[in-house]
């Protein structure tokens, strides 16, 4: 056991000097370890988090392999999965998180196909001739013979103040005996009012994604580009973390944990609402 631990420690410490098998024999540049150390794909984030691959990333571990889900290997991996240069996650919080994840009695793993994680994509669209930023929330779902990413929600600034339902004295209404007049006063709601949403029920909430798709079908919205991608994870019980991509010099690069929050009751819903930004 001790020997295994020492071997793993050496392997992880030397992750930077491990050279992968070359893509071509001649004319290749030797990696100084930075690319080997980088968490190059989100797939690698999952594999490292769960200890499902070798430190150099060249060997995939499957159930039954001796190092599959190996605790010391996971510990080493998870420590290098944090953004250690810019994020303000405290050492104490990291330790608590790692202890939870690696718990002897109840170790927790990430699962690509399970719910509890989603992506936040910052994109740019041209809306009625003007460049606008859009936040898309995407999630993975089973479909047909496999899986697909689907758009779950959209946050689009031009829609934000489109439905500001007035309150109190400001709010216009259809009086309670309107039915006796065959709702002839609907004219007030649909023709005279600039805020027809004032006449909707308490449960009314605009569906921004439907509006967004409608504008696209009307040729008012045209996709331009993707600027940034992040992932939000709620799969570890009692914890939330965010994974972002870091493209910078050094060894602490690629897909890394950029934010970590220990959740109290109700926090999960609050954070999700904040990310989805549908109010």
């Amino acid at each position, binding site marked *: 056991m001790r020997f295994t631990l020492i071997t793993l420690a050496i392997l992880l410490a030397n992750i930077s000097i491990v050279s992968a098998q070359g893509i071509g024999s001649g004319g290749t540049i030797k990696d100084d370890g930075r690319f080997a150390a980088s968490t190059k794909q989100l797939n690698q984030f999952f594999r490292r988090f769960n200890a499902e691959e070798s430190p150099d990333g060249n060997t995939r571990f499957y159930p039954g392999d001796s190092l599959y889900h190996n605790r010391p290997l996971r510990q080493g991996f998870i420590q290098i999965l944090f953004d250690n240069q810019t994020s303000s996650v405290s050492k104490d919080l990291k330790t608590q998180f790692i202890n939870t994840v690696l718990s002897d009695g109840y170790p927790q793993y990430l699962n690509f196909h399970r719910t509890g994680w989603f992506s936040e994509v910052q994109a740019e669209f041209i809306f009625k001739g003007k460049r606008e930023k859009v936040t898309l929330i995407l999630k993975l779902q089973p479909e047909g013979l496999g899986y697909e990413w689907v758009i779950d929600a959209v946050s689009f600034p031009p829609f934000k103040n489109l439905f500001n339902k007035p309150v109190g004295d400001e709010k216009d209404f259809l009086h309670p005996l309107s039915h006796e007049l065959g709702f002839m006063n609907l004219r007030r709601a649909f023709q005279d009012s600039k805020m027809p949403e004032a006449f909707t029920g308490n449960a009314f909430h605009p569906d921004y994604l439907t509006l967004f798709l409608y504008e696209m079908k009307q040729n008012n919205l045209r996709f331009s580009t993707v600027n940034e991608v992040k992932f939000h994870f709620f799969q570890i019980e009692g914890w939330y973390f965010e994974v972002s991509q870091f493209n910078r010099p050094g060894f602490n*690069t690629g897909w890394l944990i950029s934010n970590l929050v220990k959740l109290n009751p109700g926090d999960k819903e609050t954070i999700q609402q904040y990310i989805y930004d549908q109010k």
Partner: protein
Amino acid sequence: MKNKLILFLGLFLASSVVALAQSEDISPSRKQAIDSLALEKVKDLSKYIAIIGSKETQFSEANRVMDRAEELFAPGAEMGVSSINSNEIAYYKVRRYFERLMALNYDRVNITWYDIQYISDLERQPDGRYVGVITIFQRFEGTSIETGMNYKDTTKKDITIYVEKKQTQIAGRTIEFWDVMLGDVRVTETSA
């Protein structure tokens, strides 16, 4: 009772869909063979890119190589390119990307590859084909003798691979084989 039966049937059907979605997993040894095949295609692409980018390559030869390189890709594949200074992705059809590479105004172009790559798991998509991503790193150096301009960059290339089981007839026998096609490629300039 009726409600319970409907709930049971609903749960059964829902679990069947998930089981269907996750069935026909590729075994580790099969995955390794597919990875090797996919890497061969990526190697071929790297050779073709070096030939297309070299000024020493005749125009007609570059066009012939572009045809070969294009054959590695699934129809409609695109290159999405971004630089350190701008997150914005410029999209090019594969052929257009090669043409731009050929048109670069350097006397000497040297494209080399880092001895590191990462191959993702294969995931099944709704149509039954498998999809994976191979990440490689490339070093580009272009020199212009006249202006003395020397441009260098290192890019990360995330290359989509599509894996599909196909059949062919050989001497009257039906042989099944796994075919690999390249798909969209994301090119990101790295800070390395």
